[in-house]
């Protein structure tokens, strides 16, 4: 219970900081809007396949941009301060939860904007929201971890995309497959296995991320 309260206060702290400097939200939102508009202008007729693939590609770049800053803004002195009072597990869990909420919100906004400009390709909205939930959790875990890595490697932002992109591919491919199944373009007979696989990968990565972060944090 004590842990939960600490984690929640950390999440709240991140949220307050980001809300105070609203430019972060605004820039990401603008990024989404611009991407969708470019896609909308580039393709006259958006087919189901293009819709789904475009959605995920935009989402991946948006979430890289969103999560990129999670360890960036911390100066070394504030880091020292956090280090002296916090448990690394709380820090990483709070970051993952905060980024997860952020990415999930972004994915919903992206979906609404794309639907506004074109159409909604999905048969079952509930299932799509579930896919988004799993996928954005995976995105948040991988990108948070890579962002922590790149921070201890000297805050190199190219490093983040180089390391993050290949690692995200299994989660991304599974999500794309699941969303294709939801558009009735193909019959998916292994819906449950795919979902459980996605959850399994997420849990595995979360576990390792929590384990390794304490090592990175100590240094």
């Amino acid at each position, binding site marked *: 219970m004590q842990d939960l309260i600490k984690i929640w206060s950390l999440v709240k702290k991140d949220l307050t900081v980001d809300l105070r400097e609203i430019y972060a939200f605004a820039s990401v939102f603008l990024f989404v809007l611009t991407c969708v508009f470019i896609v909308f202008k580039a393709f006259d007729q958006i087919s189901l396949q293009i819709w789904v693939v475009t959605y995920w590609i935009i989402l991946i770049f948006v979430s890289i941009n969103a999560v990129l800053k999670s360890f960036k803004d911390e100066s070394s002195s504030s880091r020292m301060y956090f280090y002296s009072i916090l448990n690394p597990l709380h820090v990483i869990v709070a970051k993952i939860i905060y980024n997860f909420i952020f990415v999930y919100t972004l994915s919903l906004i992206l979906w609404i904007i794309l639907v506004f400009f074109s159409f909604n390709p999905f048969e079952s909205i509930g299932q799509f929201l579930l896919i988004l939930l799993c996928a954005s959790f995976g995105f948040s875990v*991988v990108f948070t*971890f890579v962002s922590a*890595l790149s921070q*201890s*490697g*000297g805050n*190199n932002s*190219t*490093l983040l995309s*180089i*390391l993050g*992109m*290949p*690692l995200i*591919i*299994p989660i991304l*491919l*599974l999500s794309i497959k699941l969303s294709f199944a939801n558009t009735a373009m193909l019959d998916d007979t*292994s819906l449950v*296995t*795919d979902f459980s*696989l996605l959850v*399994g*990968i997420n849990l*595995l*990565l979360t576990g*390792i*991320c929590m384990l*390794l972060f304490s*090592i*990175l944090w100590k*240094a």
Partner: protein
Amino acid sequence: MIRQSWWKYLGALLIIYVIIVGLLTPMKPGVYEFTPINTKAGKSFTADIITYNTHYKDSSQLRAWLKIDTSYALLSSTIEIQEVNKLKVTFDIPNYNPSTSDVVIADLVIDEKDEHFMVLPQALYITQDSSQVDEGALAWSLSNIENLSENTDFTFPFRWITEESMRNLFFHVSIWFAMFILLIIGIIYAIKYLLSKDLKWDIYSSSLTHVAIVFGIIGMLTGSFWAKFAWGQFWINDPKLNMSAVALLIYLAYWVLRVSITDQDVRARVSAAYSLFAFAALIPLVFVLPRMMDSMHPGNGGNPAFGKDDLDNTMRMVFYPAIIGFTLLGLWISSLYIRFQLLWESYMIKRSN
């Protein structure tokens, strides 16, 4: 262990053995081409057959059957030898198939007295307009496949499509096995580094991982050449191939990561953490995901594996030593790399003093 040399000799010996035996052992004779591939019941049917690795002279030594399931067989009526590897075989197909379905698929069996018998699975499609199962079954069970001659020499089995490229199994598959073993040892050293913070273990871990990356690239190239032969293209859009490409990308990112950080301790810590994370992401990528999708690549899903059907004992006698040999070779290369880096390290320290 790293300074002892017996295992290096063993690795070199095994690889020489694999190259000599794996490339020089002849293949058993087999059916290369069989045309046409369909006919109707009740007709006399003549097939042109091109065989591989055969030396036909006397047609009285030759027998050929069409086989349906395990119980029905039909002996050929005439066999004419055109060249040492070319036959014209005539079958009098009975009026009815031993089955109610419109089409049955028959296997071809050819036997010559001095050579090993050969089988072409699913050679001929026989269609029928109406069915008389009893009459068909009677007509198809007049002859038995018996007294097949077997060649007990040390030979590899002939498989349709892969043919001589089958030998690539000893290189492509074993190099991938060796890569995984090297990666796992590298991961163990990465954990060791994270626990002890001794830079020596970082050198061990990174060297092993780098050699594994090179092995992965070689394994992919050998696989590409095999794909060119069997599928006609160097690369096809197939889940197994794509996933292995992604795996390679992840590890190339590892290499970029190490190059991009100059501080030694930071580099060691970050790359050890990344390699652990990458290996965890690799397991679903290579071992779980492809098995759930249809694939042209052998292994679970899609094609049958190189397992009980295709890998016979003669090939195992080369395949298993190949795995051990390539693993030892990889360890040898990485041990040289490790020793070089340790020397370089001490030289740099000496120079800075």
